[in-house]
């Protein structure tokens, strides 16, 4: 490292420290607001077990939302591509899982060994063969391409496998008691896997050479290419990683989702919200945003009975956008 670089990096490091402190402050505020909301919910509800159940369900489904949103946010953070096909990729993984379980009769989670690599490969091909040609062009091009992917996948599934719903059964699935509430074993496992995956992704991005290259491309694609990073390969790798996340999510949610070609749309709607809320491109932010949305959705049903539980989700969403347009954990641009 030359002197010039060293002196230049000092303010950058300081800025980074300031930003970290800033995030900690914001995280504390979010936790405090949630705690206040919880206390209020306990006071309002006639039976405390309802709120406990809402919290348990909110955290578990929130983890799944975060898991789906992670791939989406990674792709956006590095490629600036809004991936409309994310839900369709998830649906494809659901069908792969269903196929594996149907033909071999193994435990559904073993399908991860097939679904994740297959989705990784598909993501790589999609980016390398198609999307890379549209990079650097107006944003609508990429948007239309991913929209095309989603139509292709969903209608392909419909054409070849039919629209009838399917399901896979999770052997030994049962409700675990948690402080009077119940948590389905399959949902608990999906949640734990979401945490592990978020950790793995974070470590890949922060601690490996590949991760450094990905972050370099995200920060400045021209600069990265000047120091010898193959930007097109990094794009393909990132899209593949994001798609693999959708693949993992697909297998993990298969035991408690009705498997049909449009199944991914259920998660897609909230995943978009989660990505914006968590800060675009922020993997851990996606997980936090997912948890926040999961809890808000569940508590919404208690606060506003008779209304759609999503009402509170979008109230929170609009409020956050109003106060922090860059998302809760995003850096201001």
């Amino acid at each position, binding site marked *: 490292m030359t002197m010039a670089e060293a002196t230049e990096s000092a303010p950058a490091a300081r800025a980074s420290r300031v930003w970290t402190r800033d995030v900690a402050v914001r995280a504390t505020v979010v936790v405090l607001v949630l705690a206040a909301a919880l206390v209020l919910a306990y006071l309002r509800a006639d039976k405390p077990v309802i709120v406990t159940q809402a919290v348990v369900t909110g955290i*578990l489904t929130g983890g799944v939302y975060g898991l789906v949103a992670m791939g989406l946010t990674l792709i956006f953070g590095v490629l600036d591509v809004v991936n*409309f096909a994310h839900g369709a990729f998830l649906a494809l993984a659901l069908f792969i899982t269903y196929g594996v379980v149907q033909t071999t009769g193994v435990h559904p989670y073993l399908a991860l060994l097939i679904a994740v690599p297959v989705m990784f490969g598909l993501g790589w091909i999609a980016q390398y063969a198609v999307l890379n040609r549209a990079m650097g062009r107006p944003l609508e091009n990429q948007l239309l391409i991913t929209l095309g992917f989603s139509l292709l996948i969903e209608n392909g599934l419909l054409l070849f496998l039919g629209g009838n719903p399917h*399901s896979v059964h999770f052997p030994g699935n049962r*409700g675990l008691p948690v402080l009077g509430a119940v948590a389905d074993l399959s949902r608990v496992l999906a949640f734990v896997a979401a945490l592990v995956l978020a950790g793995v992704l974070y470590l890949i991005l922060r601690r490996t050479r590949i991760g450094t290259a990905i972050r370099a491309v995200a920060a400045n694609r021209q600069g990265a290419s000047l120091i010898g990073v193959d930007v097109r390969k990094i794009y393909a790798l990132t899209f593949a990683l994001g798609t693999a996340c959708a693949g993992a999510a697909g297998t993990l949610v298969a035991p*408690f989702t*009705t498997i049909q070609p*449009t199944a991914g749309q259920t998660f897609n709607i909230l995943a978009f919200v989660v990505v914006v809320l968590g800060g675009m491109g922020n993997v851990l932010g996606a997980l936090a945003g997912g948890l926040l949305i999961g809890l808000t959705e569940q508590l919404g049903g208690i606060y506003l*009975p*008779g209304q759609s539980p999503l009402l509170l989700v979008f109230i929170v969403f609009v409020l956050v956008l109003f106060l922090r347009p860059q998302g809760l954990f995003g850096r201001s641009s």
Partner: protein
Amino acid sequence: MRKIWTTVALASAVSLGAAACGGTAPGGATGGSGGGKTIKIGTLHPLSGASAADGKQLENGAKLAVEAINAAGGIKSLGGAKLEISSGDTQGKPDVGQSEATRLIQGGAVALVGTYMSAVSANVSAVAERNKVPFVMDVTGDDGVLKHGYKYTYRIQPPNSQMGTQGAQDLYEISKAAGHPVKKVAYLHDDTAFGTSVLAAFKAQAAKLGFQVGPEISYSPASVSDLTTQVTQVKASGADVLAVTGYYADSVLAAKAVASVKPKLNAVFGIADGAFDQPQFPGDAGAAGAGLYDTNYRQDANNPQVQQLTTLYQQRFNDKIRTEAMLSYDAVRVIAAGLEKAGSSDRTKLRDAISGLSLDSLVIGNGPIKFDATGQNTGSLPVVTQVQGDAAKVVYPAKYAEDKVTPSFPATAGS
């Protein structure tokens, strides 16, 4: 860049998933006929999108009806004219349904059949009225569709209000006969017009019969992925019956949540529910589906013609037939009988003939298919099914029961 994300998220929020769909309209081949005269019937069903499985069933039902009528010699009063289907894909969207209806009418369809979704049917009925083309609705629940005073729109299935009213009545009678008269019903429903209108009718009838309805818990079918909290609310409320109105995937979630929360219920009772009476439901829900009731339209399993059609459908399409397909089959039969009676393919003469028809149905009813002044089939009658073993079977009223089964009550799901 950020603005794009915000727009994307907001757009998804507003249209609830519509952002990611789209699709293409198939070029429905409406090619000319050869020597003999052919008469075109337009079908409008969701062949792509989230309801594609149902749309396919409806489309196949109409197809089989046309084949059967042609094989039996076509429309005899018109010199054995053959029927032909012009097919339109609504994608489940009202605007697409409207443009497809216009396309089919311009292509020469003498009548329309459809559409599975009330919002789509509402638009198509307006197009049909404007063009004076008879429109026979196979599946469409919303009461409002027939309240415009249109002269060309008919409905075969029972409307939402009838299903809600009949559901409350049946639940009351079954529970009373079993010695556990219903006292308090918790109601879980989707927050669209479907769930809310069925609930309203159910509540009105419950008030007449003297049992309580509450809590009323709603959810958004397009985004729901768990109903455990909602079922915990049901458990805490002390209700003795849970009524459910919803679509397929969300109703499976409801059944699974009941199985894991285990509320003390005498019954889980679907009211016009889109899952509990379907042939694939017991397999998808597993143990959680056992004993679940549903009040809904239903094919008459004791009718030999229905049994033949069931076998034929399995052979032709490698799938189990649903009542929906029987309804579209009936809708085509109504049009064929109208053509036969009118002796003309003139659309207004056909309308007049359909208005005065009386036709036996493949679907259980309290009389033949006949239309009142609004166009509603006066013979429509929802009946009660229960999942027993690996299938949902009609259990009530007793005279329509399949395999002579009787309602099992109390029936705690998932145990």
